[in-house]
C-alpha cells in the first residue's frame, strides 16, 4: 500500500514538472489616441444620406459609434492575442462606428483599435505605421482599409477633389474591395468602390452592377 502511495506521488510530481507552465505576458495598451479617432468624422447619433445616382432615391443612414474596452478572458480583463496564447492585452480598445439604414441594401462598419501599440512595445523594427489602419466593411462582401488620419503609407488612390450633388469634397480616397479568401461565386457582388475622406466620411459607393449611391446634402 505504501509503495503504491509513493508511486502515485512520484507520478503526480512527474506530470506536474513535465507540463511547462508559462506565465502570460501582459501588455497594457495606451488608449487609442484622439488624433487617430478623428479619422472617422461621425459622432454617435449622426445621420447622413446617400442618393441613388439615376433614380434619385434617398437612403438615410443612422450612426452608432462606441468604444469597446477590455475583453474578458478567463475572468481577467485582458484581451488575448489570437496568434500568441501567452500574450494578453490590457485596455484593448476598439472604436466602432456602425452606419445602418432601414433600406435593405447594405450597411457600413468602420473599425479601429489600439493594437498598433504592440509594435511600439516590441523589439520589432517593423514599421508600426502599418498597424495604424481604419478598416471599413460595406454590405456582404466589401472590406477595405486606409491609414489613420495623419499617417502616410501604402499605395492609395486619392482624388484631389470630387464633385457630388453640387458639393465639392476634397482629398477623397478611392478604395477598392480588398476582401479575399471568399471562394464562392458571387463574392464580388455588391459594393466594389468606396469614396471616403477624413472630413466627411463616406462620400459614395459604386456597386458591382454599376449603380452608384452618392452623398446628398441639402
Amino acid at each position, binding site marked *: 500500500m505504501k509503495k503504491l502511495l509513493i508511486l502515485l506521488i512520484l507520478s503526480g510530481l512527474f506530470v506536474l514538472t513535465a507540463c511547462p507552465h508559462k506565465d502570460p505576458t501582459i501588455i497594457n495598451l495606451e488608449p487609442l489616441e484622439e488624433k487617430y479617432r478623428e479619422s472617422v468624422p461621425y459622432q454617435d447619433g449622426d445621420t447622413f444620406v446617400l442618393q441613388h445616382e439615376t433614380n434619385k432615391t434617398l437612403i438615410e443612414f443612422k450612426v452608432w459609434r462606441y468604444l469597446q474596452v477590455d475583453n474578458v478572458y478567463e475572468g481577467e480583463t485582458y484581451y488575448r492575442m489570437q496568434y500568441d496564447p501567452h500574450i494578453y492585452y490590457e485596455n484593448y480598445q476598439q472604436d466602432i462606428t456602425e452606419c445602418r439604414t432601414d433600406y435593405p441594401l447594405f450597411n457600413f462598419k468602420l473599425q479601429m483599435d489600439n493594437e498598433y501599440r504592440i509594435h511600439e512595445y516590441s523589439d520589432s523594427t517593423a514599421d508600426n505605421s502599418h498597424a495604424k489602419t481604419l478598416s471599413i466593411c460595406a454590405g456582404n462582401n466589401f472590406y477595405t482599409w486606409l491609414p489613420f488620419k495623419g499617417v502616410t503609407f501604402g499605395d492609395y488612390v486619392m482624388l484631389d477633389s470630387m464633385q457630388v450633388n453640387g458639393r465639392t469634397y476634397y482629398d477623397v480616397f478611392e478604395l477598392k474591395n480588398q476582401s479575399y479568401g471568399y471562394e464562392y461565386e458571387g463574392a464580388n*457582388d455588391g*459594393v466594389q468602390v468606396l469614396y471616403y475622406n477624413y472630413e466627411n466620411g463616406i462620400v459614395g459607393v459604386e*456597386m458591382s452592377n454599376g449603380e452608384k449611391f452618392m452623398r446628398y446634402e441639402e
Partner: protein
Amino acid sequence: MKSKVLYFMLLVILLASCRKPKEEILVSEDLKEWFVDSGNRHFEVCDENGIHQTFHFDDIENDFLENSSSLFGVTYEFTEHEQCGQKGRGFLEDSQCQLHFTAYSDATHVFFEFYNAQFSFNYNESSGIEGTMKCSDGYGDALYGYTIERLDSYEVDGKTYRDVIHIKVVDPDCITRPTFPTEIYYAKHYGPIRYQLARQHWLHRVAE
C-alpha cells in the same frame, strides 16, 4: 457463472445476427426540385424604386446524418438520413437564403431561412406540411405565425413561374426589424421570386 457468460455471448451473437442492413433514407427527388437550378443561381432583384441588387446561390450540398442503435456495444440498426441544403445571399449581410431538407423515414424536416427569419416544419408526401407553423426571428426568440399556400403558377415581371410557395406572416404589424420578410413567393427551380420586407419594400426577381 459459466452459464451466465454463455448466455451473454449467445445474446451478443443473436443481436449481431439480427443486425439490419444499413438503411439509407433519401430526400425525394421531387423535393430537390425546390432547390435553385444551376442556370438560375445568379440573378437580379429589383425593388419598388428601381434599385437593383444581385442574388447568388451556391451549389447544392448534401451529407448524411448517421444514426445507429446498439446494445452491449453491438450495433443492430444503422440508418443514414440524407441532408441537402443550398445557400444564397444578396448585398446585405443578413440577406442569406437557405433551404435545407433532412429525410427521415416518416417525414422530411424542412428548414428555410430568409433575411434571418427562420421557418421550419415537417413535410410528409401524403399529408403535406405538418407540425407547428411558426417562424422565428434569427436575432431573438420572437415567434410569428405564418400561413403557407401552394400556387400552381405566379407571374412576376412578365414571367410566369410554375409551382410557387407563398409564405405570409399572419400579423406583420408586430414586426419591427426593417429586413424581416413578411411575405415571400418562392418558385420551384428559381428560389425567391418576389418578397416584401417589414411591409415596406417589395423586391422581385428580374426576368431575363
